[in-house]
């Protein structure tokens, strides 16, 4: 059934229920010991101690290792599986970057050490700050945000501070933020956390509807949040018109950098009218997704927005200039108009180390090739699949290409009664992670292969997709019952939400 593909799960099968760590627990068992206490015990005042220790699992060393090793075997990952997951840029995560982050000179740094003790780390951060500004085509970067959504939030705070400043934008009434109907859900949610009102701009043919936009921009508009290339996988060539409409009205253009993998080194947001943007290091710059995190969401801004960036900022003293004292690199809190702190300490440091290492390995030419190869791979998949998987925006004959990802609305396949969820679960049987579904439009698959997959993998994906399209015709029940080779059959997510069980024994 698996047609020779190495589905990860075939080793595990569906025979057993995976025991919880609590079900492996045996009273008195323990996996780790500590040196004996070598100081006199102090008195613990009555009333401060808990009546009994927290009810954590009790397991021995072998049981501990086996438990988490078996859990790992029940998980897909980029190392083992192809993840053509649109908008998520699931590219290769270089092992050398993991080793870099674990170097004692990085992993052992306390965030409150004096600058003089952390010069190497600050140098790296300073270099990354400059690199990301150049890649963005903008003037200054803050490395603080924890994730893409946190970058959005931070950037919106910066925009808000700019308009509140009498010597800045001087328009405190600008509280409206526009976002296209194809925007990431985080865009409106981040706006709400800044007290901004979000207004949705409709799309036409996969691009922003300019006429609608003109009618919506007014004296209350602070900014528009746009993703370009957009979530339909298209570079919106009306971007400068969008920028002009906003700028003429005194509003700003914000870029959600989710899709930078299509243009890194090829085109710079600052050059096409963007005033402020965030990066997702876990998308464009190969930092691992880690089952959901940690990411990092640095933001880049034009000079007039820099005074509002969060503190601290990593700075460099005049390099070796006479009369300068103190260390070369330092963390500065000196920014009178700053929005303040957006998190404790200084950014997702070990994620930023990985990001630095990736950019350093690629270099300027390599980065451009990343984007071009990602676009090539996506267009190749689209071209090979389009006969069986209808694509609203892709038509090479009409010079309509995709960026680094593409959308298919597979009407013929859906006419069989097989749903996209069925297709997704059937892909799992083939060891392939399903694409993004039902977004940005209903009944679509959004496919993003990234640049790091081999041609053999791309071809295999095509073969599997065509095979599933065949199955949908010849044996739809097989597809509807998928997955067949995962550790569990299809899960009842409705029941999970109706009667939530969020803890063991809870």
């Amino acid at each position, binding site marked *: 059934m698996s047609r020779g593909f190495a589905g990860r799960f075939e080793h595990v099968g569906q025979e057993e229920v995976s025991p919880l760590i609590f079900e492996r627990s045996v009273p008195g068992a323990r996996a780790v010991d500590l040196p004996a206490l070598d100081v006199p015990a102090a008195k613990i005042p009555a009333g401060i101690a808990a009546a009994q220790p927290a009810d954590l699992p009790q397991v021995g060393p072998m049981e501990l290792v086996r438990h988490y090793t078996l859990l790992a075997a029940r998980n897909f990952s*980029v190392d083992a599986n192809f993840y053509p997951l649109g908008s998520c840029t699931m590219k290769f995560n270089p092992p050398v970057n993991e080793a870099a982050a674990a170097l004692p000179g990085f992993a052992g740094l306390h965030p409150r050490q004096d600058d003089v003790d952390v010069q190497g780390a600050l140098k790296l951060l300073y270099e990354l700050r400059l690199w990301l500004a150049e890649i963005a085509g903008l003037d200054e970067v803050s490395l603080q945000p924890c994730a893409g959504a946190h970058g959005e939030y931070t950037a919106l705070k910066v925009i808000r501070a700019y308009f509140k400043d009498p010597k800045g934008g001087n328009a405190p009434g600008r509280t409206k933020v526009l976002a296209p109907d194809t925007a990431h859900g985080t865009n409106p949610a981040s706006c709400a956390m800044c007290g901004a009102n979000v207004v949705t701009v409709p799309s036409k043919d996969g691009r922003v509807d300019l006429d609608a936009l003109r009618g919506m921009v007014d004296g209350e508009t602070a900014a528009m949040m746009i993703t370009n290339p957009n979530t339909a996988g298209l570079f919106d060539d009306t971007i400068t018109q969008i920028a002009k409409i906003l700028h003429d009205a005194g509003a700003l253009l914000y870029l959600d950098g989710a899709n930078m993998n299509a243009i890194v080194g090829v085109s710079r947001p600052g050059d096409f009218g963007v005033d402020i943007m965030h990066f997702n290091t876990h998308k464009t710059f190969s930092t691992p997704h880690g*089952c959901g995190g940690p990411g990092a969401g640095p933001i880049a801004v034009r000079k007039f927005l820099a005074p509002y960036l969060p503190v601290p900022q990593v700075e460099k003293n005049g390099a070796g200039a006479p009369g300068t004292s103190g260390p070369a690199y330092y963390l500065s809190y000196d920014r009178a108009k700053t929005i303040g702190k957006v998190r404790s300490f200084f950014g997702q440091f070990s994620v930023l180390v990985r990001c630095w290492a990736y950019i350093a390995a690629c270099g300027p030419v390599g980065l451009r090739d990343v984007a071009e190869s990602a676009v090539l791979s996506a267009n190749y998949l689209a071209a090979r699949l389009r006969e069986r998987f209808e694509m609203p925006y892709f038509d090479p004959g009409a010079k309509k290409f995709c960026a680094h990802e593409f959308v298919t609305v597979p009407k013929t396949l859906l006419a069989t009664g097989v749903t996209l969820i069925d297709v997704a679960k059937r892909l799992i049987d083939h060891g392939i992670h399903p694409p993004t579904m039902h977004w940005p439009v209903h009944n679509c698959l959004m496919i993003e292969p990234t640049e790091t997959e081999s041609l053999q993998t791309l071809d295999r994906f095509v073969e599997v997709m065509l095979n599933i399209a065949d199955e949908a015709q010849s044996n739809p029940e097989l597809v509807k019952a998928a997955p067949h080779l995962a550790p569990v059959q299809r899960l009842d*997510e409705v029941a999970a939400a109706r009667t939530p069980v969020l803890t063991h024994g809870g």
Partner: protein
Amino acid sequence: MNYVQLTTEQRQEMLAAIGVGGVKDLYASLPPEYRLGSDLKLEGLPKGLSELELRHALNERAGGNNPAAEGTGAGGGNLCFLGGGAYDHFIPQAVNYLAHQSAFVTAYTPYQAEASQGALQAFFEFQTQVTRLTGLEVSNASLYEGATAVVEGVLMAVNSTGKRKVLVAGSLHPDYLAVLRTYLGDLPVELEVIPAEGGRIAAKEVEKRVASFRGDVAAVVVQSPNVLGLIEDWEAIFAAAKKPVEGHTALAVAVFNPIACGLLKRPGDCGADIAAGDGQPLGIPLSFGGPYLGLFAAKAALMRKMPGRLIGQTVDKSGRRGFCLTLQTREQHIRGAKATSNICTNQGLLAMRATVYLSAMGPAGLREVAEQCYHKAHYAAEKIADVPGYKLAYSGAFFHEFVVDTPVPAQSIIDLGRARGILPGLDAAKLGIGHERQLLVAVTEKRTAGEIDALVELLTDATKKK
């Protein structure tokens, strides 16, 4: 090396299949004037590095630091007595080994439940552990880090009560307070700080202030052990905070340290409705401040107002137990601007570290870690107080961190320590919790009696220097 493995021949083959002559043709919709005419100018990086060159460059930058601790390994590093929200605890090798398996490191958010049972089960176990650690009923699968977890706790209280005043203990970590101010700045919510007289806040003062806002208080936020290391009387404070005023009861938000929960009364034991804290002490390396782990738990009644990812137990078609993301209608990708938070991920890999750590330690191990922290910190405090010129800045119970009044500027002690490989503590003035002749000293289970004696000797010698 940019990790692209397509050969020149393969690229030609792919272009032919698309029906174009070159990659530039694929950028047809990118107007030529926006195409970068030259290579990016990356400072100090004219071209990409080979792996060997890259490792040298990284080693050079890592070598340009004087690390407080040894990172994820054992041995080496300085003697670290630094705390202030990030602590040098022992990390069992099993944590590095098991949490850092590539199937966890390189996996995506577990939207596809059947392909993500490993991560989902681990996070379900994590949620269970956090509820047991905090004594509350519901935990999410983690947030970014401590300060933003406190923010989410406050926003959840505001959203669920509809009230507009937030009272915060003055003994909260100043960074956390600063982040809270940033987040509340553009929202119609008013924040008031309750001063910490003598290092702690008083239940009576809390009661008075809550009453003065006539039933408009959403939350009362109290950290314990607080930023000075002192144990606040959560029970009395939360009882005072939750006295109904004009028919409304404020929510109690406990800011906690998970290691302290191994010994001290838990937030849920003391009447907290919401608990938020940083999970860094649970097997996460210091890493210059991040990434860390936001821990977040609450009473069951608040379940549907929770921010972040929640993992639920369910069954598959054959009735077998499995796990999936649940209650997603709270979240941004479904609800947009009406979501409970803009948060889109958990800190998966860090939650993995924390859950392996808690399983490795177990109840007895965590208790022992907490007790050793307590005993060693008290041993250090007593010895330091015996050195002429030094005394503890505050009386009252503390956990593993305390402020010392020093006879010389704290910075001079820190500088002297650098030469000896000892990081004696944090300058209270720089941290924003005291003056320049105060040192915040943290002592974890990792420090030995001999190392503590070396700290005491350093402090003694610091008074002899000019």
